[in-house]
């Protein structure tokens, strides 16, 4: 195995780790935030606007802003993960809100009339019916995160971006491609995987 191949494999693994951890956290936080936004529409709108704003910060600048912060900042993988979580939040939260708000009010009313508590309605009706939309959000967030994670190398986050940055510095297109192609392949794979889940969930609902 050549040095470059080993480097690519290592960087890909690191890339997957960063994106995986960030996505896990973004989903774990984003779905409850989305649910809370639906339940409290007024503060929910403010929260969505805030998350919207984060999305508008250029990614390189966001990494830069995080570096001086204590605990979550600094140089290294932690900063990279925090930035990716912030970026991935919007699609997950927004699609959770869209999915739940899109549940037919008559179906929601039937669930109330049958005697389900608020929690039972959420777990048995709203979330399952919102699933295709939520998977859609996760798909978009993951594809974005895989791309943005290449920039994490600028703050010492590692991953496939390391190869790209090094390639750019050395004017070495092979190295740039060695970083860019696996990143693109990962993005396509994630798109296909979550797209399939999205369709599977939708088919189960007959929509």
């Amino acid at each position, binding site marked *: 195995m050549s040095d470059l191949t080993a480097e690519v494999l290592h960087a890909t693994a690191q890339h997957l780790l960063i994106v995986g951890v960030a996505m896990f956290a973004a989903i774990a936080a984003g779905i409850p935030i989305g649910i809370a936004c639906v339940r409290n529409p007024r503060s929910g709108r403010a929260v969505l606007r805030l998350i919207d704003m984060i999305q508008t910060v250029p990614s390189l600048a966001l990494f830069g802003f995080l570096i001086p912060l204590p605990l979550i900042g600094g140089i290294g993988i932690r900063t990279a993960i925090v930035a990716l979580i912030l970026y991935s939040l919007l699609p997950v939260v927004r699609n959770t809100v869209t999915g739940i708000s899109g549940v037919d009010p008559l179906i929601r009313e039937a669930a109330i*009339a049958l005697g389900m*508590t608020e929690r039972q309605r959420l777990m048995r009706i709203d979330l399952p019916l919102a699933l295709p939309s939520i998977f859609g959000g996760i798909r978009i967030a993951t594809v974005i995160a895989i791309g943005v994670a290449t920039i994490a190398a600028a703050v010492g986050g590692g991953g496939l971006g390391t190869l790209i940055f090094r390639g750019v510095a050395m004017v070495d297109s092979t190295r740039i491609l060695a970083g860019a192609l696996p990143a693109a392949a990962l993005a396509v794979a994630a798109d296909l995987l979550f797209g399939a889940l999205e369709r599977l969930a939708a088919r189960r609902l007959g929509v």
Partner: protein
Amino acid sequence: MGSSVFIDRATVSGSNGNAIVRDISLRIDPGESVAVIGRSGAGKTTLLRLLNGLAEQRSGSVIVDGRPLVGSRIAERRRRIGTILQAPALFPHRTVFENVATVPRLLGWTDERIRRASEEMLDRLDMPFGRFAGRFPRSLSGGEQQRVGIARAMVAAPPLLLCDEPFSALDPIVRRDLQDTFVALRDGGDVTLLFVTHDVAEALRVARRIVLIDGGAIVADLPAADFVRSAHPLISRFLDAARIPEAS
């Protein structure tokens, strides 16, 4: 034993603050079957929604089985009140069996009891369990969906049954068929029935007492036999409208 219902001078307001039903009082004894008729917008649906807490009164009270309906345990109480709506609103991600099993599961019945009750209920509605249990609502016709809606509302034998124009979206033959099935179910159990409809013929078929509501107030409350002989002008108009002209 069916539930007793007492609505005492209840007023319900819409979102614009106007009263939809005004100072309405209605007492229904256990086992009675009451049809509420009226024109569109008369307040029929709101009256029905008062009885499962989907509408809340601004003033007055709603007493079911001797206890005020609205309170912290409203979800539990709704499990003993069957509601059938015009749109069956089945849960699209759940099979026919899972839809029908909703209330028994909430009541914590055993799997075996749930299965037995669901099977019996669906069979009585002419939907053989073996053929329909595993199907999803989207694969059913409108009439079949409404049957599942009825099964879902009645499977746990609620002592109070509320129906809001449950058959109005169905074709006349399926409709008639379901009315008959429904009457048989009503007669087979101890249930208090409140049935909202704008169709006088349907009201007379399913209920023994007719309440006419207009402009948010009760304008007539008569046994079915007296209703058809009433000289009340609005009742006459309803009866005239329901009459089929003779072929010349």
